[in-house]
């Protein structure tokens, strides 16, 4: 459809009746949607004019406006004419526009508010995270509580053990002390022989010691005790080399002890050693509990 045709049509309609009414009549049936669209059309046109009116002096280019509006339909032109003619109508339109804009704004806000954030996937995801986090937090708190409890338990046990050891007191230290050799023995016990009857009154105990020194020993002896099954010391004595015997460096040498008490059934425990080197230097020391012993 050409512009001219439109203009003509427009003019023709204008001369007769308002376009919307005419249209309404021609269609016969009243269509709500049509009416709505026409109204919308008219109104938008009015808005357009108001906008133009603000920019330009209205009335001067009425014809031009009308011509431009040709595409919008006859009804718009008609209403337009009314609007252009009345500042009151212009004001009403302006108010209507403001109301609509305001309504739009309100609706936009309400639309946003209508979204139930708590049901949005984002929120649900975050909520789930919070749930897990809270669960983890509980767990982490329990972990700490567990650790603290465990530490307390261990601490208590250590304290108990310490107090038990305290109960043993110095005696334990003494026992440990006497059970350690005080120095490296110059005479180590290499063998302990059996008990033999030496004479009617004496029993002989023989043993072999090893000279751990680089000196020839002119005297070498081992002090011992014999114990019963309960650990009571039932006898003591010392075993030594034969009179005049020497013990060469790094050699095994025999020693012997004579005792009037029958050691049978007792335990032979070397306690101390004594060694005198050919230069006259003597050394004594205590054996530890790691020394060789013998149950007779």
């Amino acid at each position, binding site marked *: 459809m050409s512009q001219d045709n439109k203009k003509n049509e427009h003019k023709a309609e204008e001369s007769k009746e308002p376009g919307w009414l005419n249209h309404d009549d021609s269609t016969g049936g009243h269509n709500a949607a049509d009416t709505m669209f026409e109204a919308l059309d008219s109104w938008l046109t009015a808005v357009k004019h108001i906008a133009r009116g603000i920019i330009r002096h209205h009335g001067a280019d009425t014809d031009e406006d009308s011509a431009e509006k040709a595409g919008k339909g006859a009804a718009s032109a008609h209403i337009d004419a009314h609007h252009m003619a009345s500042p009151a109508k212009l004001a009403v339109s302006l108010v209507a526009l403001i109301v609509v804009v305001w309504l739009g704004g309100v609706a*936009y806000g309400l639309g946003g508010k209508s979204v139930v954030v708590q049901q949005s996937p984002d929120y649900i995801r975050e909520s789930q995270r919070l749930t897990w986090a809270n669960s983890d937090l509980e767990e982490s708190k329990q972990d700490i509580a567990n650790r603290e409890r465990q530490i307390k338990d261990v601490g208590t046990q250590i304290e108990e*053990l310490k107090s038990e050891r305290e109960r043993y007191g110095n005696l334990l230290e003494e026992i440990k002390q006497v059970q350690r050799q005080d120095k490296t023995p110059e005479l180590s016990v290499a063998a302990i022989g059996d008990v033999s009857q030496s004479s009617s009154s004496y029993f002989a105990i023989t043993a072999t010691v090893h000279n751990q020194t680089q000196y020839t020993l002119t005297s070498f002896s081992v002090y011992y005790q014999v114990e019963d099954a309960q650990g009571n010391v039932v006898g003591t004595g010392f075993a030594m080399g034969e009179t005049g015997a020497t013990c060469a460096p790094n050699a095994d040498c025999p020693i012997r002890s004579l005792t009037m008490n029958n050691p049978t059934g007792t335990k032979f*425990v070397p306690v101390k050693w004594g060694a005198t080197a050919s230069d006259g230097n003597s050394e004594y020391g205590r054996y530890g509990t790691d020394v060789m012993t013998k149950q007779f």
Partner: protein
Amino acid sequence: MREGSKSRKPIILMVGFIVIAAVVFAGAFAVGRVTKDPTTDQSYKEVTSQVTKTENQIKANRSTTKELTKKRDELREDLAEEKKQAEADRKVFEQYGGDAQAGKPALIVESISPDEDPLYAATGGSIDLYYYPKFTVRNNTGHVLLGAVVKYTIIGSNGNVLDGEGNAYVSNVVVYPGKTVVAEDMVKDAGFSGATIKPVSFNATVADSKDSDSTKTIDAQYADDVKTVTIP
């Protein structure tokens, strides 16, 4: 018809306006709803910040737990070591230790044996008679006993002191608490038959834990009710 259309015009305009308003409202509402970003909502932000806060707490807690775990493991190692030590100590103590009996002397005289020299009988009395008084004493010092001296007298049946300076010795021994040891002496007979051997005092050398490998001496008098023995 024309008059009627004129009167209906405002109504139609009004209706149109309402419809437009409704459409705009609906549209804006729809746009508002669709474009709504839940992540900008306060409640969402609160949840997020709560999550962050909680996660930070968890992080801190886990770090604490880690430290505590380390501490616990160290303590457990200590405990294991302590237990091992305690077990060894207990064994040692049970085997060798023992509490001193209260109200009794540090060296309790358990028995005294006058022991005549067997050679005297073996030689048919052709040599001098010697006695070997043996004092079996119990270590009640509460320490490890390393040596002891028991001083005794020999009192004749008439009450005269026949020998006032007897000393029975034992040395180079390790006697644990509660165990007995024998201190021995040798004394030449001086008409001792029928006389009584009576401990007077003692002198005990014990280990002193305060100073490594040092000893200390405990001495005391025996009470009058001390065990005695009569020489046959």
